[in-house]
C-alpha cells in the first residue's frame, strides 16, 4: 500500500477516533464537575494529567519501539525503575554541601544517559539476534525485566528508598480552587508535556524522524534506500529506554524508588499503547492523557462512594477492552 493511500485511509478513522477522544475527555470533565466541588475537580484533573504523563513516559518508548522494531519490550517498566535507582545513586554520591539543584540535575542526566546506554546494549546484544522470532523476543524482554527487577531487589533490598529531595522551589504546594496540589507533580506534568512536544517534533521535522516514520511503514524499503536500519533500530530502542529512565528519576522525588515500581506502571503503559494504537505515537500521547484522567476520576469516585480504590484499576482495564472491541487495532492504530 502506498504512503498516499495509507494516509488517506488513516484520516477517516483518525478523525473519528480524535472526536471520540475529545468527547470522552469532555465527558470525564463533566462527570467530575457534576460529582465534586471545584477544588476536588482541579485535584482530579491535575492528578489525572500527572498520572497520564507518567504513563506516557513509560509508554513513549514502548510505542515507537513497537512501531519500528515490532518488538514488545516488556522490560520497559524496569527501565523506568532503573532510571530512578541510577538517579538515586548519583544523587547520593556528591559530597556534603553540594546544592540540591546540582545533585538533581546530575541525577536526571545520569539516569537518562544510563537508561539509554543500557537500552542500546540490550538491543544490540539480546534483541537483535531474535528479530525473526517475535514470540521469543517478547519472552526475552519479559525475562530481562524480571532479571533487572530482581537484581535491584537483591542489591538494594525490597523495601525501596526514601524519596530524594527536589530543589526547594519545586518542593511546595500551591492552592487551587480551594484545594492544594503539589508543585512537584505539576513539574512532572510539564516535563512530560515538553517530552511529548520534543518527540513529536523529532518525528515530524527532523531527518531522523522521517526515517523512523518511514521505517514504521516499511522497514525493508528504508533499508533498500541504503540507510543503516540496524543503527536506527538501536538508536530508537535506546531512546525509548532513555525516556522511560528519565520518567523514573523525574518521578522519584514523589514516588520514591522501589523494585516493583516498573511492573506497576508496565501494565498501565501497555494499556495506554494498545488503546492508542500500537504503531502510533500520537495515539500514545492522546491515550495516556485519556487513561490518566479516567483513572483519576474513577479513583475519586471509588474513594468517595465505595471507600476503596478498586474502580481505579478496573476502569482502565474496562476501557481498554471496550475500545479494542470497537477498534481492534486501537484508537489510532494501523490495520496492516
Amino acid at each position, binding site marked *: 500500500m502506498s504512503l498516499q493511500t495509507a494516509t488517506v485511509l488513516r484520516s477517516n478513522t483518525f478523525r473519528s477516533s480524535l472526536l471520540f477522544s475529545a468527547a470522552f475527555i469532555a465527558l470525564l470533565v463533566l462527570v467530575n464537575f457534576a460529582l465534586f466541588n471545584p477544588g476536588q475537580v482541579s485535584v482530579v484533573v491535575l492528578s489525572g494529567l500527572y498520572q497520564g504523563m507518567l504513563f506516557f513516559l513509560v509508554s513513549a518508548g514502548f510505542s515507537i519501539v513497537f512501531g519500528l522494531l515490532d518488538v514488545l519490550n516488556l522490560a520497559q517498566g524496569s527501565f523506568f525503575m532503573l532510571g530512578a535507582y541510577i538517579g538515586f545513586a548519583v544523587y547520593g554520591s556528591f559530597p556534603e554541601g553540594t546544592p540540591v539543584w546540582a545533585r538533581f540535575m546530575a541525577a536526571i542526566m545520569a539516569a537518562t544517559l544510563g537508561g539509554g546506554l543500557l537500552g542500546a546494549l540490550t538491543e544490540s546484544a*539480546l534483541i537483535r539476534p531474535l528479530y525473526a522470532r517475535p514470540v521469543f523476543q517478547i519472552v526475552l524482554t519479559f*525475562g530481562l525485566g524480571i*532479571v533487572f527487577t530482581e537484581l535491584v531487589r537483591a542489591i538494594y533490598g525490597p523495601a525501596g528508598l526514601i524519596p530524594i529531595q527536589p530543589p526547594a522551589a519545586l518542593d511546595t504546594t500551591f492552592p487551587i480552587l480551594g484545594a492544594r496540589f503539589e508543585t512537584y507533580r505539576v513539574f512532572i506534568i510539564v516535563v512530560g508535556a515538553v517530552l511529548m512536544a520534543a518527540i513529536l517534533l523529532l518525528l515530524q521535522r527532523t531527518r531522523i524522524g522521517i526515517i523512523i516514520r518511514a521505517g514504521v511503514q516499511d522497514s525493508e524499503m528504508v533499508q533498500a534506500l541504503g540507510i543503516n536500519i540496524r543503527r536506527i533500530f538501536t538508536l530508537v530502542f535506546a531512546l525509548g529506554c532513555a525516556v522511560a529512565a528519565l520518567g523514573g528519576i523525574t518521578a522519584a522525588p514523589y514516588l520514591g524508588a522501589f523494585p516493583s515500581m516498573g511492573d506497576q506502571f508496565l501494565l498501565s503503559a501497555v494499556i495506554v499503547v494498545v488503546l492508542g494504537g500500537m504503531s502510533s505515537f500520537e495515539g500514545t500521547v492522546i491515550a495516556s492523557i485519556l487513561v490518566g484522567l479516567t483513572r483519576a476520576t474513577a479513583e475519586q469516585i471509588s474513594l468517595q462512594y465505595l471507600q476503596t480504590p478498586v474502580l481505579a484499576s478496573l476502569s482502565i482495564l474496562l476501557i481498554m477492552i471496550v475500545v479494542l472491541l470497537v477498534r481492534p487495532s486501537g484508537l489510532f492504530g494501523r490495520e496492516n
Partner: protein
Amino acid sequence: MQTPGALYEQPNRASHKGFLPGILLAALLAPPLIAAIRGQAPPDVSGFEHFTRSLAEVACADGLNLVGSLYIAETILLGMLTAVAFAFPPGKHPVFTALRNQGALLSALLLLIAMPFVIAWGTDSSICERGKSFFWQSVFIEAFILAALAISYNLIFGFIGVISFGHAAFFGAGAYGVGLLIHHLEWPLGSAVLGALLVSVAMGVFVSVIALRIRGLYFAIFTLVFAEIFFVLAQNRIMVNITGAEDGFTFAVPDWINATKNRITFYYLGLAYLVGAFLLVRQIVNSPTGRVMHAIRDNEDRAIMLGYNTFTYKMLAIVLAGTLACGAGILRGLLNKGASPSVLSISFTMDPLLMTLIGGAGTFIGPVIGAFLLHLVEQALRDTVIPIAGIEINIGERWFLILGVIFIVIVIAFPTGIAGTLQSWWNKWTARRNARAPSR
C-alpha cells in the same frame, strides 16, 4: 501395483496397540490387589472398607513394603525391557516395536506411580503419615497440577500458535469456582467440579467470540487485561464476604480427597488427571482437527483459503485448553482447600509459558518435562546457598532472578526446549546410523 502410499509406514495400529497399555493397567492394579489379599483388617468391617483397610495395612508400612517393592520391581523391569528393545533394529518384532514407541513413556509413568514408595524406602517413612514421603507427595502433586496446566497452555501456544496471556483466568476460575460453589452454595463435590468446568467453557467461548477477530499481539494483551480484571475483582474489598479479598477463603472437602489426611489418594488423582490431559491433548493433536490446528499455526491465511473456518478451530483450542486449565485449578483448590488471588496472578500464565518453552513448545512431553524440572528443582534447591564471587546467593530467595535468567538463556540458546533439542539430536543420530548401516 504398489501405490506410493504403501511406501509410507502405517503406524503400528491394529492388534498390538493396546498391548502395552493393557500390561500397564495390570501392573497398576496387581500390587494393591495382592496387598489387600495379604493384608489384615479388623474383622468387623466388610466390603470396600475391608479392602482399603487391608491394603492400607500393607501399603502404609514404613520403608519398603510389599506394594512398594512390587511397583519398583515393575518399573525396573519395564525400563530394562525398553532399553533392550532399542538395541534391536526397528521393525523386527511387534513387541519390540511397541516397546520402542511407548516403553519410555510408560516406564516414566510407572516410576511416578512408584515414586511415593521410592521416597518412603529411601527415607524410611510411610506413605500415609507425616514424614518425608508425605511431604514430597505434595510437591509432586503440585508438579502434576503445573504440568497439566502447561500441557493445556501448549495446546494454544505450541500447537495452534495463538498467544494468550490470560491463561491464569481459567486456572483461577477452577479454584475459585469449585470453592465458591462448595462454600457458599453448598453444592456437593461432583456438582461443584462440573459447575466450575462449565464456567470455564463459557469463559472460553466468550473470549473467543468477542476477541478472536483481534489479531495477534492485541489479542494477547486483551487476554492479559481480561485475566487482570478477574485478579482485581478477586482482590477487592467490596466482595470480601464472598471472596475473602487478598486473603482468599477456605472451604471444606470430603475426607477421601482431603490432602491433609489422605494425601496418597490425592497423589494418584493428580497423576491420573495429568495422564488424562496428556492423552487427550495428544489424541486431539493427532486427529484431523489437530492437523488443521498445525496448519493454522504455519499459515493461517492459506488454511482459510483451503476452506477451513479457522475461527472455529481457534475457539475449540481455546475452550479445550481453558477447560483443562480449569481442571488443574480445581485440583489446586481442592489441594489447598482454599483459593486466594494468587491463583489468578500472572505467574500462572507465565509459569506454564516458561515450562512449555523449557520443555519444548509444540511437543507432547515438553510441557511435562518443563513443569517437573522447574518445580522439583525449585523445591530441592529451596534452602541451598551458593557462594559466587564472594557473594552468597540463597537460591530460594533469588528464585525469580534465576527464572528470569533461564527465560533469557532458553530463548537465545535452546528455542526448541529440552524435548525439541533432544529430538533433533536423536534425529541426527539415527540419520547417521541409517547412513552407516546398509539400506534395507
